[in-house]
């Protein structure tokens, strides 16, 4: 049975959800499916990460006033929900514990990056 209750927006294989260099005022949470995060080096795509259900991306736009640092592309069918910068920052100012999960996720990413740097330097 096809459900009608899905929240967020559907993206299909290859759809660009976030494009490197563009300005953004929201972050995204993956409700269903997978996305790949892609950086550019000398005109070539470099896959930086693959994210799945419950992961978020585009969060740098919430805390910095910089352009998007990478492109995010749908791998297969993806459903993602946007979280507005203003809504989130207002909520965090009322309830700082709302940032706990963001900090945990960011901390985990730093841990994974540390591991990758160690692997890279020891090669």
């Amino acid at each position, binding site marked *: *049975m096809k*459900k*009608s*209750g*899905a*929240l*967020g*927006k559907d993206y299909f294989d290859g759809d660009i959800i976030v494009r490197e260099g563009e300005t953004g005022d*929201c972050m995204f*949470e993956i*409700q269903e499916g997978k996305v790949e995060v892609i950086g550019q080096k000398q005109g070539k795509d470099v896959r930086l990460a693959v994210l799945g*259900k*419950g992961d978020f991306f585009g969060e740098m736009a919430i805390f910095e006033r910089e352009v998007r640092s990478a492109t995010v592309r749908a791998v297969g069918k993806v459903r993602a*929900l*946007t*979280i*507005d910068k203003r*809504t*989130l920052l207002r*909520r965090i100012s*009322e*309830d700082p*514990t*709302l940032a*706990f*999960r*963001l900090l945990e996720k960011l901390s985990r990413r730093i841990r994974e990056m540390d591991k990758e740097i160690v692997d890279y330097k020891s090669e």
Partner: protein
Amino acid sequence: MSDISREKRGNKSDPQRPAAAGSKLDDGSKIAVLGGGPAGAFFTYFLMGMAERLAIDLQVDIYESRDYSRSGAPGCNMCGGIVSESLVQALAAEGIILPDTVVRRGVDSYVLHMDVGSVKIMTPLEEKRIGAVYRGAGPKGITSSDWESFDGYLLSMAVEKGARLINQKVEGVAFQDGRPRLEIRTGSSESYDLLVVATGVNTAAFKLFQDLSPDYTPPRTTRTFICEYLLGREKVGEHLGSSMHTYLLTLPRLEFAAIIPKGDYATVCMLGDRIDQDLVDTFMNTPVVKSTMPPDWESAHKDCRCSPKINVRDARRPFADRILFIGDCGVSRLYKDGIGAAYRTSKAAAKTVLFQGVKKEDLKKHFWPACRALKNDNTIGKLIFLVVGMMQKIKPVRKGILRMVIKEQAKKGGRKRMSTVLWDMFTGSAPYREVLFRTFHPGFIFGLLWHLMVSNTPFGRVPRQKEAGT
């Protein structure tokens, strides 16, 4: 189901006595939550999550006699069942993803219906950001087992965090040695370090606790009317789409009405003064409502209907030593986003009792400000609804508002001042204070005056919006 007579964790040295001697929760502290609706479930989920981060081992018992897997009244906490845009986003930031078995319809737009015409207001990114849910398994007589209860889903999250679900009714409450003690229907009793009342306003249970908290005054309520129409998924999709339909009509005693698509059903919600069958029939037979519903809607099964109470004035002093009231039996939002208010007050309560303490002074200093912010915002909300009620009665004003929104929605970019004001008012997505301030903007005032003038001149007219019906 768990039973109170089963395993009692409590204080390792004496399982009958609560552990915390002071005003702070600590390892082994025992908390009773009365009511497993959104307020009780959110409180438990956030309290257990924060305690886990701090490596504090708490025992939380949720007393809920309702079985949310049942359809109709036995499994339902009775409300319109809308999870607002701002709450959907806050929950996403918390890592709570509402599954598509819980959300019966993702809503991406509102259609405002008036006697002078209809207009569809889309979400900013044309994304489904509002969830239409059933509090229980669904309306009386529902046969499909593909869906889950919203309240049941939240409660299961709280239980997964380690809370005990006790499927018993609480018969009495008293203070003993400075701590609340609950008397259960089975004849057993249990003492706690903290009592959290989250019973809503549609049960007499919260009256049990008034003597424990003499300063507490329960909220003042009014009755609403909710009825479920079984139309079938195709007809719901064809006629209502993924829009919530709101009606600002000039019917005596009717303040506001909405039709919400949910799976195979359409939920009709009405708010006003003494809503009776005559008013319901009058509303359902107005041309604008008939044009929204399928032609044969009158023959649809409508066995499931109720008249639940909603808050119109907040509770006073919803806290005392080791006791607090959250959700509807404490302070909620006026008319809109009651589930969002339950999220906010329950989280404020969880933070306070864990980080600050459970004494009256702690609750007054750290929990009450979150309630007071809602309460103050409700005062502004009352003013807004009063003004809207007056404007609703003046046809030239209705025409001007409709023209302004239609013109805004036809534009690709640009500021959509009236659309966002109406959107936030009807969805409860922003505080009423913010909505009011936006109406003071010169762009809003001049825009409204312009559209009032143009739509009411002999040559002016209100354009029709394409596809405003769904």
